[in-house]
């Protein structure tokens, strides 16, 4: 350990006792769990899956990089895990990825994982300069926005990478983000509030170490082939983040007059972000999530940009903001009284992207009131839309459920039965790592059949296909786990990328990359088994900590009904009978018990997780065959 791929060290920081030490990564079988979500989940499991609330000091904040982090390519991704305050109806063990520059710096500083527990008695920030790790006073930083905090710390720590929270995280807003640079955030999950609950304002990392590669010639060959194929690394997904997705006048104006540069994460040749500057509002980057905001912009570039910059600065999840905007139509329809939301003005909102009534000034007033209200913890929506909707009664909640299908997260590409099933089984919006449906299998029967899966169900007028869909979902779940654990950027790792069968496909790219870097022979099968293992361990955590059972593996009942005016993205409502039959087959395909959805001993032992089976059995939660 510690020679190739993994640095071999896990940094542990206890904010209560101020104790800082390291433990060997080899204690957690990194070759089996890779890094990122896999390693975080393994560490959480070994901690005994603490049954505490998200804001309890014993909720560990786990930040993992992975074996390929720090290399040239779309690999600068860290995964944040812990108990997520955003999840609903109960807080779940979930995850959120972050790009920017932070992951590489953590790796160069010599760590595979940061494990942060406890709660500081006063505001602090964590500074990591290689092996010099300190907790420093953050009182002067408390209350600053995310941009100001980073600028201040980068001045003091010579261009280090900074992960920080804004006022939203400090005030325990359940949709608070942890931001690095601009537009690179651990957004979903509300982990910014976990930092806030620990009195931890920021994490500053600078690393000057180097990373050896086990098989440099193999890596060079892999890179050069992609370069020569002009796929180093140019993918269609680049445009998702570079320019506003709404099209029309706003996109044209932003692109022609406000775009300053193309931008992106450290070490990645994709460069999928656009960096915009509107005087009076601010400068910063946007990615796909921000690029969606055009539909709610008040009809102007200024409105578009203000929504993005203000939420980033205050440290609020931009994706949740989109959900809120959709849900606020409940006010227009008379389902919710805006006074109950603590908002004086709500501009008319048209989700079809048409100019909205009220104009730019109304949009500005509304955004200011809403976002500052959320960041200060005073507005009801700072608890997240899910909890706000619940407190406003059944009608508000039903409208909410059409937009937020499960776990308290806004709909994200539920466009076929496979992605609906994937959502039902996860512990948050899983789409950060499963665009495989919308990019590859849904639209292309050709790509799907190459991978042995049913597909093409989004092409030609959207069909609702239940037949063999369990295999597609299980495949994407395993792939999601691999992406989250190498970790590799979602944009670079869709099955439609590098699709040159049979010589090259995304599985071959990922397994070859891991083998070249680590020197461990990851065949495609071995890599897929790792994905299977990681997904199954996540399930074991949910079963152990949240007593997850089959009954919870569902979307909101609204998704089985016809509902006028909803934004449900499926061609047809789900069919309950076919859905339950699909779930039966899905559990069997995964090696879980169909009656309760718990993993079985046979499956766990097949994946080399006997101790997990033993612990589940001791707790009376092992799936019987």
């Amino acid at each position, binding site marked *: 350990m510690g020679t190739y791929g993994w640095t071999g060290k896990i940094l542990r920081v206890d904010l209560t006792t101020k104790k800082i030490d390291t433990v060997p990564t080899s204690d957690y079988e990194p070759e089996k769990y890779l890094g990122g979500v896999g390693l975080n989940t393994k560490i959480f499991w070994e901690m005994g899956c603490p049954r505490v609330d998200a804001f309890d000091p014993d909720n560990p904040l786990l930040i993992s990089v992975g074996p390929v982090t720090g290399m*040239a390519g779309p690999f600068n991704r860290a995964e944040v895990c812990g108990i997520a305050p955003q999840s609903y109806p109960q807080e779940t063990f979930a995850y959120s990825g972050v790009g920017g520059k932070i992951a590489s710096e953590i790796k160069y500083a010599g760590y595979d994982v940061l494990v942060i527990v406890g709660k500081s008695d006063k505001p602090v920030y964590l500074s990591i300069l290689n092996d010099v790790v300190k907790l420093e006073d953050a009182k002067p930083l408390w209350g600053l926005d995310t941009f100001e905090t980073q600028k201040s710390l980068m001045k003091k720590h010579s261009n280090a990478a900074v992960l920080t929270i804004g006022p939203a995280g400090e005030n325990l807003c359940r949709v608070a983000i942890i931001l690095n640079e601009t537009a690179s955030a651990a957004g979903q999950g509300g982990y910014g509030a976990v930092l806030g609950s620990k009195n931890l304002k920021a994490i500053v990392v600078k690393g*000057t170490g180097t990373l050896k590669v086990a098989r440099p010639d193999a890596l060079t060959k892999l890179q050069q082939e992609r370069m020569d194929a002009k796929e180093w690394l140019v993918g269609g997904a680049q445009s998702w983040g570079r320019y506003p997705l709404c099209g029309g006048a706003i996109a044209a104006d932003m692109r022609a007059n406000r775009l300053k540069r193309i931008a992106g994460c450290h070490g990645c040749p994709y460069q999928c972000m656009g960096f915009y500057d509107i005087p009076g509002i601010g400068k910063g980057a946007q990615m796909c999530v921000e690029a969606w905001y055009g539909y709610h912009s008040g009809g102007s570039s200024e409105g578009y940009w203000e929504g993005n910059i203000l939420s980033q600065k205050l440290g609020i999840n931009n994706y949740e903001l989109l959900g809120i905007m959709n849900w606020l139509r409940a006010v227009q329809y008379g389902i919710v009284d805006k006074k109950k939301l603590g908002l004086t003005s709500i501009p008319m909102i048209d989700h079809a992207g048409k100019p909205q009534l009220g104009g730019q000034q109304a949009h500005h007033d509304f955004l200011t009131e809403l976002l500052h209200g959320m960041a200060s913890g005073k507005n009801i929506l700072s608890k997240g839309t899910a909890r706000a909707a619940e407190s406003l009664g059944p009608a508000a909640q039903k409208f909410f459920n059409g937009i937020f299908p499960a776990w308290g997260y806004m709909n994200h590409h539920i466009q076929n039965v496979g992605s609906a099933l994937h959502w039902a089984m996860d512990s948050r919006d899983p789409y950060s790592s499963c665009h495989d449906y919308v990019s590859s299998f849904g639209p292309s029967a050709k790509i799907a059949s190459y991978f042995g899966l049913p597909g093409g169900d989004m092409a030609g007028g959207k069909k609702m296909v239940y037949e063999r869909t369990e295999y597609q979902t299980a495949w994407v779940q395993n792939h999601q786990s691999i992406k989250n654990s190498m970790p590799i950027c979602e944009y670079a790792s869709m099955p439609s990328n590098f699709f040159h069968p049979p010589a090259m496909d995304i599985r071959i790219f990922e397994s070859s990359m891991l083998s070249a870097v680590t020197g461990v022979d990851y065949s495609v099968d071995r890599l897929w088994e790792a994905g299977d293992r990681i997904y199954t361990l996540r399930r074991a955590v949910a079963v152990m900590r949240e007593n997850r059972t089959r009954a919870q593996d569902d979307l909101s009942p609204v998704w089985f009904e016809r509902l006028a005016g909803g934004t449900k993205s499926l061609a047809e409502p789900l069919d309950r009978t076919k859905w339950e039959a699909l779930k039966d087959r899905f559990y069997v395909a995964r090696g879980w018990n169909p009656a309760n959805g718990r993993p079985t001993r046979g499956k766990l032992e097949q994946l080399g997780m006997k101790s997990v089976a033993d612990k589940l059995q001791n707790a009376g939660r092992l799936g019987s065959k």
Partner: protein
Amino acid sequence: MAKKKSEVKKITRREFVTGAGAVLAFGAASSLAACTPTAIKTATQPTLESVPGSTRIVHDPNRCAGCGVCGLMCAFYHEKEYGHSLARNELVRDPFNAAYTFHVCQQCESANCYFACPKKDVALCVDKKTGVKYVNTAECVGCGRCSDACPFTPPRANVHPVKKVSFKCDLCRGRKDGPICVEYCTMHALRKVSGKERG
């Protein structure tokens, strides 16, 4: 040979990277200041009359997206390892202004590094065709005088922390496809320009 201490202490590359050597303000303006040469040549020092103005790499900050693949591929090509501290170039990233500053050897005609080398033409050599100054690692003793002599901050020649030999940009001398940073820059922000073009 022991490393000769300069009278005025220069900031080493490592200290520059970690910020331990001096207070280095963050931002584009200060980054530009940091790459201004303190002295291009001294009065007593000859210039390389026999060598044409050399080829070097130039950076277009308006095209650059700040990814730093240039540095990663550089370190990996030359050292088979990744990490900024082994790169022959350095990209300073200001994410709040999308301002990116690129530091790389300017292949000066005055070549302070070359004249400072106690084994010049053996350890620090000049390519007669291109004018590129390069290190023959088999002969380099790692005294660090080339680094001390470099007029730029941070210095564009540095001593490898483990191998104890000097390293600097040699435009990937001998690489079939030219400098790897130029080839792998997907934004086409880096360009190799000849001495003639440079003027």
